[in-house]
């Protein structure tokens, strides 16, 4: 390395890793100060690499980088939070990876988003302690609004009039709740119960920690989840990879043929 190379420090969460060549990897980092960026770690896959454990996806680390010609290069990394409990539970891990994928999809390179950074760490801290998996819903709602896709929950998304208390049409395409008179104008949507609407309104203003204290029964959570999934699909224009994975874990696994071994079941590939 030449002495002239510019270097900098930044704190960030590792969103993903891609292997490069024999021993290198490219990591996507979401940093508090720099926003999202890719950087390369040379020799990180060799057994004696000092940086390896500090650059695992989902790790929050203090990173030292040197500016490179194309990609910046990691020179050092130290773990701030490994979120170890998240890695030891398949459902928590799947949800954490899904949220990281959302961050990756909702952000552009080198555009700092400190509020979203805090939100991601709040989520990971929640999953690392014993917050319920429903905090994923709060994360979905908040990443939408932090990215400028606020869901209309008080006024009709089409005409702006106040939404009276009651079950109401939710249209992701319209951008939120749609009042009864406007219903014919909304192309698609699903009916949301008063309870689901209240959960969404609460998620809008609550912290992840506060949302974790909310008791949601399964049916209610599924209702909220479907509405948010609609909204996210509307923005991203396609399914998330990890999202499909979370679904496949939640879905009861389908049959490989019942056997003496019991209920060994299998979920077939979706889509193909």
């Amino acid at each position: 390395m030449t002495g002239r190379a510019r270097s900098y420090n930044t704190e960030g969460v590792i969103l993903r890793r891609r292997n490069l060549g024999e021993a290198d990897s490219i990591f996507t980092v979401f940093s508090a100060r720099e926003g999202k960026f890719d950087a390369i770690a040379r020799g990180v896959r060799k057994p004696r690499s000092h940086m390896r454990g500090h650059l695992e996806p989902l790790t929050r680390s203090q990173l030292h980088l040197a500016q490179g010609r194309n990609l910046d290069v990691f020179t050092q990394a130290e773990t701030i939070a490994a979120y170890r409990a998240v890695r030891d539970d398949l459902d928590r891990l799947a949800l954490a990876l899904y949220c990281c994928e959302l961050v990756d999809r909702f952000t552009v390179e080198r555009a700092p988003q400190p509020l979203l950074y805090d939100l991601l760490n709040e989520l990971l801290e929640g999953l690392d302690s014993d917050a319920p998996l429903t905090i994923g819903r709060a994360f979905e709602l908040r990443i939408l609004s932090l990215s400028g896709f606020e869901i209309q929950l008080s006024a009709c998304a089409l005409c702006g009039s106040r939404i009276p208390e009651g079950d109401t049409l939710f249209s992701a395409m319209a951008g939120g709740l749609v009042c009864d008179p406007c219903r014919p104008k909304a192309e698609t949507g699903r009916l949301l119960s008063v309870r689901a609407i209240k959960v969404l309104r609460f998620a809008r203003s609550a912290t992840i920690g506060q949302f974790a204290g909310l008791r949601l029964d399964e049916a209610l959570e599924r209702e909220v989840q479907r509405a948010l999934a609609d909204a996210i699909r509307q923005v991203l224009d396609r399914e998330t990879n990890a999202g499909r994975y979370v679904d496949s874990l939640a879905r009861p696994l389908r049959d490989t043929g019942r056997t003496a071994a019991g209920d060994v079941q299998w979920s077939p590939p979706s889509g193909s």
Partner: protein
Amino acid sequence: MADGTSTPEPIQRLIEAFHRLPGVGPKSAQRLAYHILRAPEQEARALSDALLDVKRRIRLCSVCMNITEQDPCTYCADERRDHTTICVVEQALDLLAIERSGYRGLYHVLHGVLNPMDGVGPEDIRVRELIVRLQDGVAQEVIMATNPSLEGEATAMLIQRLIGPAGVKVTRLARGLPSGADLEYTDDVTLARALEGRRELV
């Protein structure tokens, strides 16, 4: 490259073919292509025969999914090996590493790991074959020897969940291995120790 257009098409094609191989950059691909160009014809023929032979004669063992010339493979066909233990690895190269450590049970090669972010799900690797294989009730223990990376751990947890109801003991290599390690690059002593210290997945 300035001379890009003047490179004859067959050489360009060879360079591109080499470049597609893992770990081969554009410069190395170019060097390899020009090496073949200068080499005697037998050398080129030997290489192309070897390439085609691999594709024609090597297949996956129908039991353990290891790459093999005969089916079942030599490990699965060997009666002296412990048929009650199955060691699950990500790739065939990892199997060789485990074998060097002195392990003498059977194997299962997944040919990949779950990678939710890149859309690699359980149906994209050889998990199903493992579940089906366990149904004969011979295996008493499944040792998860996936890499101690996030993807490797996720794969181990998923397999644990899928075979949990089958009543087979599932163990995981001990963390003698540094997190994020590649089995392929791990030394034999570390690996042997990790095998001894395996623990049951709960």
